[in-house]
């Protein structure tokens, strides 16, 4: 309501200013009285009003009256400012775009810093959204109203008009593609659409509303190192764990490598973490940096079973923790000397300190770390090599000689099958 009152004040002030300028220049003919809303609606109020080319220009009077602007008494010419001095009807078809900034200067200033305005300015990409694309025009209602295009529950559809529309994505060269479809199937999307949770995030919760910036922009809410801050706006507890962790502290220092939320959870298609497919995928994600650890993990039963596509055995987070990962030397770490046995016991109930001497990342090629394993692996390698070389050669020579003998007909009938019963 305050905003409505403010708007009214602004309109009155503007009118007063116009009047005073008019008063200060008596030599000029008195400025024409701007058309009243009823004047405009005389034509535009007709549901069949069209331009010369047939495009409709109708404004339903009751729709406008029910909109926030209509209710606040905003005049048509407040937005369509170039019609304020109009004297002749019908007016020219080509008009200036409606001037939202007259009143909504802050929102428009924010919009100007965002990706949509940038796209329009830089490449003349006229697909990029303007105020009206998201808010509508004559029917704008406050975003707190369920009927509003920018209401929490409807925002996905509003953004989806472009970001879920293959045609627009193609024309606008939107690199990220159809994110709305991804989001719909995500845990956030389902909570928002299916469950109707008011706390589930819509697009604006992560991207902002007017100042939607590219992820490469350090001021963006989705700039890499800002993402954990954005997510912990809701996931407060996890955020605390994360910022304390070895990854979080690195990100806080500006590391471009340490993982942020989206590295593991993705951005739009975030899934439940108890889904098998996700648990298996995230192992590979850890492995993009911890390459050697992934390699040695794959040599163990745990790593082999997960590689086969079953998540019932231990994967990275089961031992190391998910958000609260610490270096092994840190006593808070679940794989620290003090806590390791308890970590094994999560699955292996009878695990003892001796049991926990198992190395889940043993490297048979590392003599310092796993000496006995190193020598065992070397022995096995020699054994396999020796046996297969010797018998490989033995077999090859025998095969050659045998073929020769067979061709020469050196053997009597050797095949012993059931024909011998009544044969020989």
């Amino acid at each position, binding site marked *: 309501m305050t905003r409505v009152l403010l708007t009214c004040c602004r309109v009155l002030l503007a009118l007063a200013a116009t009047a005073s300028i008019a008063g200060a220049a008596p030599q000029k003919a008195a400025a024409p009285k701007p058309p009243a809303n009823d004047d405009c609606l005389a034509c535009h109020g007709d549901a069949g009003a069209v331009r010369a080319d047939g495009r409709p220009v109708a404004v339903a009077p009751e729709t406008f009256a029910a909109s926030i602007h209509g209710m606040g008494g905003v005049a048509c010419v407040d937005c369509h400012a170039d019609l304020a001095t109009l004297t002749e009807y019908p007016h020219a078809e080509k008009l200036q775009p409606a001037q939202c900034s007259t009143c909504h200067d802050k929102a428009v200033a924010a919009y100007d810093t965002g990706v949509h305005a940038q796209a329009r300015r830089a490449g003349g990409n006229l697909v990029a959204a303007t105020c009206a694309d998201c808010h509508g025009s004559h029917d704008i209602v406050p975003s707190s109203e369920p009927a509003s295009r920018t209401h929490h529950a409807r925002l996905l559809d509003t953004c989806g008009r472009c970001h879920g529309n293959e045609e627009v994505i193609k024309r606008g060269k939107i690199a990220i593609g159809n994110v709305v479809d991804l989001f719909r199937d995500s845990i956030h999307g389902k909570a928002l659409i299916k469950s109707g949770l008011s706390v589930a995030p819509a697009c604006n919760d992560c991207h902002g509303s007017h100042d939607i910036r590219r992820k490469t922009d350090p001021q963006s809410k989705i700039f890499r190192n800002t993402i954990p801050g954005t997510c912990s706006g809701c996931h407060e507890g996890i955020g605390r764990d994360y910022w304390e962790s070895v990854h979080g502290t690195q990100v806080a220092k500006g590391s471009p490598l340490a993982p942020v939320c989206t590295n593991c959870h993705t951005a739009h298609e975030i899934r439940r973490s108890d889904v098998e497919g996700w648990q298996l995928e995230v192992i590979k994600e850890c492995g993009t940096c911890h390459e050697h650890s992934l390699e040695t993990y*794959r*040599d*163990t*039963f745990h*790593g*082999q*079973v997960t*590689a*086969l*596509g*079953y998540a*019932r055995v231990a994967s990275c987070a089961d031992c190391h923790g998910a958000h609260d990962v610490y270096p092994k030397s840190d006593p808070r770490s679940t794989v620290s000397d003090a806590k390791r046995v308890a970590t094994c016991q999560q699955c*292996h*109930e*009878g*695990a*003892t300190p*001796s*049991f*926990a*001497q*198992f*190395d889940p990342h*043993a490297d*048979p090629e590392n003599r310092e770390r*796993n000496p*006995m*394993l190193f020598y*065992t*692996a070397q022995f*096995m*390698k020699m*054994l*396999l090599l020796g*046996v*297969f070389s010797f*018998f*490989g050669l*033995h*077999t090859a*020579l*025998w*095969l*050659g*000689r*045998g*073929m020769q*003998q*067979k061709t020469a007909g050196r*053997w*009597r*009938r*050797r095949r*012993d*099958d*059931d024909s*011998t*019963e009544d044969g*020989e």
Partner: protein
Amino acid sequence: MNAQAPAGGHVPAHTHYHRFGRTERLLHGFLMFSFLGLAFTGLPLLFSHEPWAASLARFFGGFESAGTIHRVCAVVMISVFTIHVSRIVRRLFGQKDLGILWGPHSMVPQPRDVVEMIAHVRWFVGLGPQPRFDHFTYWEKFDYWAVFWGMGIIGGSGLVLWFPELFAYVLPGWMFNIATVVHGEEALLAVGFIFTIHFFNGHLRPEKFPMDSVIFTGRVTVAEMEEERPEEFERLRRAGRLDELASAAAPRWVYRLGRTAGGTAVVLGLLMVALILFAVLK
């Protein structure tokens, strides 16, 4: 392994000689069956990064049921091993049969095996005559000891991995790492050896192709005995003991069973070798 004379002693117009007893053939049958089961449920883990491994695991109903099949087969194989060893112990201490420790009916490697191996290889390359083999050849002894050692190593490490919490009372945890490597590598050796070298020696070499049914029927033809084991043939002839081994052909169903089981094993085994080679050479 002393071949027992068939009941009745004299068999008129014999076409075959007796070689393996019923228990030996049965044990080999169970060994084959459990070995295939172990190989097909175990190798998917060793080659878990291969797409075929995941399909194979799915075929067995997932890694858990593949693991159950693996353990059932392991119990079968350990039983085969135990029965075999107890039979040897009985022959040695019960029947005081010292022939299994030395001589032609012993599996113990002896100087003549080295001599025969060298002579055999010389024959391969045309440098000498084919050696005159007796009851067990050097490659048969190698097959036997390879499997014997393999069962000890793979079986032992397998048990450690099956009951890690129990074994942790007596072994340090890093032994599980060793057990994992040994179990996998030795399994690869066993599978590679059985499915190529043993299949070749036993079935696929030109003299035998496509298969030798002796392990299923327990008998060899007269011609085979004379040509393949001339030393044994002569020795028994001189001792006048050939007739004790004389036998007719096995019943038809035994041949059919042998052909089906042996043929299936060879096909499955070679398929597994192809999958392994595909993974290793990729």
